[in-house]
């Protein structure tokens, strides 16, 4: 979602200025390995799993998570991605434009879905994603994995797997990229 926020920031002329780096690329990698283990422990293997990344920030993390799961369990877990623009509750309030095509690899009915995003903030993106998933079948269970939980939830949603709990102010911004995780501000130019 950080990616999304950054892009949306553009029309208002604001840019993201990192203030401190809170996770290095190695930290992110270690967190992913741990989460992969937690997922396999919790679900007793990878047999019935589907990993779905949320566009756009969750997709690279979801890909890496699938690779980590394969290293441990030697199984290819189906992988897909989801753009939730059409399911958001703020359509018409701010520009909500679909960015990428949704691709769900199989019918989700009876499967356990691991939803992956980079940052969990208000919970509204996840709420939209749950609605979107329902259109692709009745999953047996949906679990949520995020790299950063920054708080400020507006809906009763909680993650099952967390890379890092990061206390933030509401007006700060969290950016997850290949360079790790940074905390910073949106600043008017």
């Amino acid at each position, binding site marked *: 979602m950080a990616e999304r926020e950054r892009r949306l920031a553009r029309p208002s002329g604001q840019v993201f200025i990192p203030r401190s780096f809170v996770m290095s690329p190695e930290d992110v990698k270690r967190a992913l390995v741990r989460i992969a283990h937690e997922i396999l422990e919790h679900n007793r293997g990878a047999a019935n799993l589907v990993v779905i990344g949320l566009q756009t920030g969750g997709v690279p993390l979801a890909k890496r998570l699938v690779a980590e799961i394969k290293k441990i369990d030697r199984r290819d877990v189906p992988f897909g991605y989801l753009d939730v623009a059409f399911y958001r509750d703020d359509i018409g309030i701010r520009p909500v434009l679909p960015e990428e*095509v949704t691709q769900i690899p199989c019918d989700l009915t009876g499967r356990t879905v691991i939803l992956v995003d980079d940052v969990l903030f208000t919970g509204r993106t996840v709420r939209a994603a749950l609605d979107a998933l329902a259109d692709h079948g009745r999953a047996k269970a949906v679990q949520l994995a995020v790299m950063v939980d920054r708080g400020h939830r507006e809906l009763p949603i909680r993650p099952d797997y967390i890379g890092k709990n990061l206390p933030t102010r509401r007006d700060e911004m969290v950016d997850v990229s290949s360079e790790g995780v940074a905390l910073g501000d949106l600043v008017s130019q």
Partner: protein
Amino acid sequence: MTTPLAKRRHLLSVADLGREGIVEILKRTDTFSEVSDRAIPKVPALRGKMVATLFFENSTRTRLSFETAAKRLSADTMSFSASSSSMKKGESLRDTVETIDAMGVDAMVVRHSSSGAPKLVSNWVNASVINAGDGAHEHPTQALLDCYTIREALSARSGEKSEDFSKLRIAIVGDVSHSRVARSDVLAFAALGARVTLVGPTTLMPSTLEDWPTSKTCDLDGILQDVDVIYVLRLQLERIDEALFPTLREYRSRFGLTTERARTLREDVLILHPGPMNRGVEIDSEVASGKNALVTRQVRNGVSVRMAVLYSLLASSGHTGNSVLGASNGGKDEFEDAPRDGDEIVLQTPQKTRAHRG
């Protein structure tokens, strides 16, 4: 001035979009195309929005296409046709559209036999107006779906999606003078860089082609081997009341895409037709159903393109229709992460970067 559709209120002409606007819609249509391919092809994106189709002229595919598009986005639809309305009692166009606007419509899809009617309507109403064909002027969504269909066929061949048509030579064949499709298509194809040639009898060509980014010829056979795309127009017999060509048979023999003629075309040529087809006049049945013909893809893609258009106009913050959220200020202050009144700390000045990269 051309601006992207998401910042516009109306879609009246391809000329308003420009290259960037066209490319933006083509790219966005991919996401809507995916929705159409689902087992349940419906998303809640435009819940609570009302789309009215106002057809002052007959139509099957355009109207059904817009209604399908609106329904796939969960918008409500309302339809109006002139023949069964109070216009029969003499109500004017203005009174009619203002009445419908007053019911709280977010978008009006307007088709009219007079050029410029949708533009007039857009001056009178609060709703977003989409031109679904006005006289011999324009039919912008048709041009967009044609571009999307060509892009789709090319990407199936090359494996990559490209909006650059600069390697393409496109022939538009037939009744150009009565065709709004031709006008919109010429603008769109040329904006994407294609070389466009108009083919038809001089009597069916517009009186002046001065401003058109095209070449023209009366010799269809002479160019057949050179074209990558052949766009066959419908002979608009209902608009032709004088002798513009001797007989339908002669028209067919010189300008029809007959089975014999189709054999001389390049192996990988793409054949498009906006429909409805006069089979056996401008195009032979065998050609229209052949492997190079994209006619049914055009119809299918029409729904996805119109979803993209409706969504871009109605979901953007520039939309000031009749929705309660209409008075948005460009969405600027509505970001989830924007500072809100009452927050204890609001940073106004950029803090010095303490731990910068590197």
